[in-house]
């Protein structure tokens, strides 16, 4: 019973939009759904910069973790990623160029207290509240998940990918690396593998829905898109709304598990439920 949310500002160039603040409100309004972990991915940097961040978890003591950050340019990023893929001790956190991922165990307000989410700006972002069902309560099992295959892919997920093992086996056979035991990671890796193959994000989502089994809704963000996708039977919730904006407040599309998250940020027009099995995608203007 995780809670997920996401938003895409109408004006994609508006780097000063209060994306962090809106996401934080949406997460806190759904806190009742899950309390084991919280995380966000916000797209807040320019694609022009040749700067990649590879973040990893480093265990400190029995239950504490620190985050190591390796800055790379396009020249040495492959080499640094290879080091991570080959190091079994490493708990991969994220691979970022335009986005910033922050995640931690505990409540959404604790995440804000630690990282100052409300002060973050950007063009779009996603958020997640986790309740642990199949894997342990650790920061590296917390959403959003990204991949070492391509930068700037982040997914948050509510539900179960029941054929996770089969999908993971076939992706590993294709040569893609996994870093956690979470079934959610398979969504990120699958999308990255298909973007690499044909570059069509909508097709990638459709292919995932065709292959994945189980009850799920996920929100996936790339540097220029955000999509909400429900399983083909629509067994998990998902809702979309639009806030037309005011003079002080820019307009945006919002999506979440619960209607309460749309209410709290005023995204109460053009309400719709995504059709089961059909990705609903919003592109950055």
């Amino acid at each position, binding site marked *: 019973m995780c809670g997920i949310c996401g938003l895409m500002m109408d004006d994609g160039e508006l780097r000063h939009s209060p994306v962090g603040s809106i996401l934080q409100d949406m997460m806190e309004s759904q806190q009742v759904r899950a309390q084991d972990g919280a995380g966000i991915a916000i797209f807040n940097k320019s694609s022009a910069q040749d700067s990649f961040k590879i973040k990893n978890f480093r265990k400190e003591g029995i239950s504490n973790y620190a985050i190591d950050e390796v800055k790379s340019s396009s020249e040495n990023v492959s080499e640094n990623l290879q080091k991570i893929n080959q190091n079994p001790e490493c708990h991969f956190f994220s691979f970022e160029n335009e986005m910033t991922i922050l995640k931690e165990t505990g409540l959404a307000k604790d995440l804000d207290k630690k990282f100052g989410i409300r002060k973050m700006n950007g063009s779009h972002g996603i958020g997640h509240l986790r309740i642990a*069902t*199949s894997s342990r309560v650790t920061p590296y099992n917390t959403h959003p998940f990204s991949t070492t295959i391509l930068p700037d892919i982040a997914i948050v997920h509510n539900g*179960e990918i*029941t*054929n996770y*093992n*089969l999908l993971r*086996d*076939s992706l590993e*056979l*294709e*040569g893609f690396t996994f870093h956690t035991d979470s079934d959610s990671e398979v969504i990120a890796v699958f999308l990255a593998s298909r973007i690499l*193959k044909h570059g069509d994000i909508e097709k990638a989502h459709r292919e995932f829905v065709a292959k994945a*089994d*189980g*009850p799920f809704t996920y929100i996936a963000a790339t540097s220029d898109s955000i999509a909400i996708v429900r399983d*083909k*039977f629509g*067994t998990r919730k998902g809702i979309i709304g639009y806030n037309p904006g005011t003079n002080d407040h820019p307009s945006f599309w919002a999506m979440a598990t619960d209607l309460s998250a749309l209410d709290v940020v005023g995204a109460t027009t053009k309400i719709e439920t995504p059709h089961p099995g059909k990705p609903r995608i919003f592109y950055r203007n």
Partner: protein
Amino acid sequence: MRLNEKALIRKSILELCNTGMPRQKSTDDVIRTIREKSGSEKEGNLWEYIIALGAQLSRPPFDPYREKIKLTTKIGRKGDQKISLKIPILIYGKFDLSQSSKDALYLALDNLDDNRSTIGLISKDEPCDERKYPHFQILDDISKLADPDGIVLEYTGVKTEEKIEKIRKEFDGPILVEVDEYFSYYTAKLLELGIDGIVVNTDDIIKSEKYKGKHAIAVIHDAKLAINEFYRGKENDGACLVIAGDVNNAGKMVKAAGLGADIIGYDTSLLIAKVGHHSENFFDEEITAKKIFNHMIATKSELTGIPAAIGYSDFHNLSPSDFRTSSIKASIQGNIPLEGVDKTYKNIVEEILEEYVNTKNISVNQQEKQKIINLVTEEGN
């Protein structure tokens, strides 16, 4: 199962409850010892030691799944030449049938297609002209190619490879090759030549020297591995694995699918057609066809049960991780996790070796580690 074997399982469970200590031996090893001492030559059938994991809290079966379990399977690697089966079964066996038995079978297959339950047939006979079901013709002689939907060739070495090259130019439909025990050496070559899948008869292969003492599950596991090896680094474009022989009921079909089979070569329908002569005073084609039809519809229902209980909406989403076994032998041969620990025997050996190497600070390279693991797992086998 015998009474003393049931008592042994009960005793074993009570021991675990009392002591909290893990077993030194799997229960089936002890049962096998009893059987051997009592003069039984029959080896424990590993199928019996594989169980499916039911749905858990996090993997709930939903009513929509129960109602819509997809069994449809495509045969063929190219879009325009794929054959669709509504039940992943190709009727295939090595029985000689009378013409009336064959007619009953053909009628049943047509009726199944009418009822959206299409299954296929592998046969040496020429396909009927107005059939509704897909017919795969077993072809010894290329000149005898009639008008089948698919072709099955028996692997006999380089000559088969030459045949494939020739037929592939003329025939657009799926080509399957029935392989022998050395399939792991040449499956990649056959797929390279453009075949659409392999047919593996587990009954024949476990009789060979190479698979002596091994079970059908080892053959299925290895055959899937052979196909996967060809696709390493790329996506499988639809090459299928047809498992025939020892898979003669719905339970085994589900387990075989979990181990990697895409389609089952099934011979029970042929038996029903054959015994149509013996069980009736006279042979009634329609009655026998009805029996085959009913049996297949019942099998179809059974095939949807376990995937539904696990939380799948597609039969082909089963994988070894959906099963557990109490048998070390089954764990090694089928790469199935062991009950209680949820790890395969091979995983456990790998972990112990890793810990030992680290604790003792020994320098062992990856190749040497693999050699030790193979040695230990072969011993356990």
